[in-house]
């Protein structure tokens, strides 16, 4: 830009001052238009979707693979049960929703009768969640994650697998920044914090699929 200024001053100095200033300003205006056009073009070109894939170590990749496999085991059971249920309309009445959920839960509980807690949330996974919250977030963000989980009105949620999450209890907002560091779940199941404990809950019928204690450090 200094070169532009020197060049324009040298070029216009011999002419009368008002005219010179007007021409210099014109030249600057043209340069500004040009640079703005160039920069906005560059900006649009540079815009890429936000990358939502977490960066994982080899060990974490292995851990995520184990987790995914075990979630898929549940998904298979779930699919087998869902296949036998009358499908729920996208414009269902509350009575239809209730009947569907009740039926779904009862059949799933029967199928999963022998499942032990911790089948999906293996200890290494709990450690990963604790470590992630501890180390990957700035103190302020960490405090907000904890506050969100701890202030929720969900004292009445039983820490038992194969029990429905009580419909009257609050479903804590899962911190999006943390979700991006956890394995992506099928849309039918969700992570939920109940105070410091982490649950895996079925979205359609509210069944507590698994839980792990003190996942929140």
């Amino acid at each position, binding site marked *: 830009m200094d070169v532009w200024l020197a060049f324009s001053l040298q070029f216009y100095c011999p002419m009368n001052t008002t005219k010179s200033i007007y021409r210099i300003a014109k030249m600057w205006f043209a340069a500004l238009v040009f640079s703005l056009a160039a920069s906005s073009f560059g900006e649009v070109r540079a815009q890429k979707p936000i990358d939502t894939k977490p960066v994982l170590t080899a060990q974490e990749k292995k851990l995520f693979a184990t987790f995914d496999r075990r979630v898929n085991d549940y998904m298979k059971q779930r699919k087998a049960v869902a296949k036998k249920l009358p499908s729920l309309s*996208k414009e269902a009445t*509350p009575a239809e929703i209730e009947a569907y959920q009740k039926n779904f839960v009862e059949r799933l509980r029967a199928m999963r009768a022998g499942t032990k807690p911790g089948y999906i949330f293996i200890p290494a996974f709990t450690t990963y969640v604790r470590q992630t919250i501890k180390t990957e977030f700035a103190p302020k963000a960490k405090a907000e994650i904890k506050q969100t989980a701890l202030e929720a009105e969900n004292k009445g949620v039983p820490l038992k697998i194969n029990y429905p999450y009580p419909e009257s209890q609050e479903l804590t907002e899962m*911190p*999006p920044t943390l979700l991006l560091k956890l394995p992506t779940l099928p849309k039918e199941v*969700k992570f939920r914090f109940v105070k410091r404990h982490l649950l895996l809950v079925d979205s359609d019928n509210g069944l507590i699929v698994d839980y792990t204690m003190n996942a929140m450090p």
Partner: protein
Amino acid sequence: MNRIFKTYLIVVLAFVLGVTGNVIGQKKGTNGNAKGNKVAAPALPRLTLPLAKDSVRFVLIGDTGTGTEKQQDLANLLLRSRQAFPFEFVLLVGDNLYGGEKPADYKTKFEDVYRPLIDQQVKFYASLGNHDEPAQRFYEHFNMDGKEYYRFTRGNVAFYALNSNYMDKKQIDWLQSELAKDQSDWKIAFFHHPPYSSGGKHGSSTGLREIVEPIFTRYGVNVVLAGHEHFYERIKPQKGIFYFISGAGGKLRKGDVKDGSPLTAKAYDQDMSFMLVEISKDSMHFQVLSRTGQTVDSGVLPRQKRVTAAVR
């Protein structure tokens, strides 16, 4: 060239003088001063919305699902305001059912309260709050098409209902891909947790904001509507986006707006409220009514002129 240059000089001068406000007719922030509990059919205030031909008219209301008398009072006012302002649909910004979700809850906390509007074919488009089971997405009157997050359009406006309770990779990817191909003049996102808020109890959902705001700015979302806080707040434009909170449709957190909050353009936390909205061409008109029939905020927002991303 001379004409362009003169225009440029005027623009630069205007910028230097600080004429950069986005809101026409913006009022100074106050928290309102309405009084009274039980209201017996308050008079409908004069509505300032233009009722333009082919405009998109709707209502924003949140945190409704209590089934209380006060929720009913507000619903009655909503019904009466439809006579003067025939809105087509209602956006629910979550916490649609508090406490329980049995068929009786759907009846007493939603159907009975809004029955006259449902009978008049007014559609309710719901988003999920932290008190809502995901199974609500199947409910006939919430028009969610069985999805926790979805998009629909009216005229030149695209509406994005998001599930701020669970903003995972799948939803983020979906949002980005939908916005990237969206050619609508107006893009409005509505969901439960407010990215900006002056609430004392909750405040801004900064974790959510960290994720969604870059997407909104990148793809030219014009307006963001939220609830969760049980009051009304219009936030000063943030990164060129207009943010509103209307979460006093069934509950009120009286006096919760922090005094002197730098975020507040206008706030009202003295009674329950809803917001009437009309979008006509490049303008969004709004008027916020309290349960007592006061206009607690109103104005016109111009559609932002922004370069939206051309990512494919």
